[in-house]
């Protein structure tokens, strides 16, 4: 993991993309998301995640439902909306394009 401050905007920008990817696979709650990102370059904390998820919900990309957990209070389980899935597809395409460009430039 590079701690170069120059890479920070890249990680920040990609975080939303990764959230869409993680949430698209399954209904997840915040601890699941944090667990998936832990140990990667994108390790994230609640302080960042909650505001971001709430922004994505306002943009109608994700939605949540309350679900009782075995122990403790009910949890918010997030899933993608139709708009979120479209956005993810677009982002996937865009990401491939970027990769292609980078590879082309390396040659």
């Amino acid at each position, binding site marked *: 993991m590079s701690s170069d401050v120059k890479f920070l905007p890249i990680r920040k920008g990609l975080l939303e993309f990764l959230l869409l990817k993680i949430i698209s696979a399954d209904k997840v709650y915040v601890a699941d998301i944090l667990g998936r990102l832990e140990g990667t370059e994108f390790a994230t904390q*609640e302080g*960042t995640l909650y505001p971001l998820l*709430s*922004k994505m919900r306002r943009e109608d990309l994700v939605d949540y439902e309350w679900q009782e957990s075995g122990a403790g209070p009910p949890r918010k389980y997030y899933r993608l909306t139709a708009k979120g899935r479209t956005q993810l597809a677009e982002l996937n395409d865009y990401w491939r394009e970027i990769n292609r460009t980078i590879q082309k430039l390396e040659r």
Partner: protein
Amino acid sequence: MNKVTTVNLNGRAYQVEEQAYEALRAYLDEAARLLADDPDCKEIMADLEQAIGDKGSRCLGPGKNVLGETDMKRILAEMGPVETGAEATGAAQAAGTGAASGPKRLYLVKEGEMIAGVCNGLAAYFGVDPTIVRLVFVVLLFLSGGLVAIAYLVLMFVVPTAKTAEERAAARGLPFNAQELVEQAKHHYADLKDSHQRWRDRRRHRKERAFWRSGEKRAYEEPQSRPFERPQPGYGARVAAGFVLPLISVISAVLTVAAIFAGVSLLTAGEILGWSPPMEVPPWAALLGVIAVYALVAAPLRAVRYASYEALGPRRGWFVFWDGVLWLALVILAWWIAAHYLPGVSEFFQDLFHDWR
């Protein structure tokens, strides 16, 4: 020995030591400050409290029921600083408006409106000439037996007015949802109450001023009269505009009726006042020709109308309203006369009405 406080984190009580409490307080205050502009501030704060509480519960066990300072510091470090997505949102919005020139939505457009700008707004929304929308409106008014007028009134109060440049662009460029609809209606109602209040205030103000003026010297009053109003057009120009506007309305109403008459007679009898288009010209092309001629003649009239509106100055609202009503009334009157006294016209509309059903 440390003092212990009980805190409520999103509905659950936790025992924390005083220093832990201070740290928690500082974290949550900072979070609230950072999220002050976030529309979901309350919800996010509740989520954060819940998350802190969950982490706290995991520290606690049968042998431990108070959270200490070190526990709290660790929990808060795990939580991480609150980051608002402010920059990210800004960028996303900029990208959105740049890419699709903003979503289209329905507004009342007050530039060149007849009554309230509903037809004008619809015309901007669909990207057609306002006159066409007005004609369609009048036709629908007859076919629906006046129901459309109610629709017009509802739209007039419910649709927002395009005030800023962005809104005017958007008027041309999302249909609005039900919640906004209700909000708008409330807003207009509040405006209505507000303007009534202002009107009463103004009347009182005028009375008081008249009272003072009778006693004091005029020169004392003069410099402070209406210091922040736009320069008004000359009195002569306003009087001229006041005469010209109704005249223009009458002319344009006559013109509109003539255009409709020409169109109808073209479609029913295949001729206009004895002149029929050459055989090879299809009826729709001839109709387009009529519309083109109408638009050509109506354009300078419209220019004069707008110039007159300008000349009337800032307090032209009611005048413009009545001018629009006059236009509409004349068109409806002409229509009624035509429908009752010209057999071809009434047959045509009966047919149209029949087909409609």
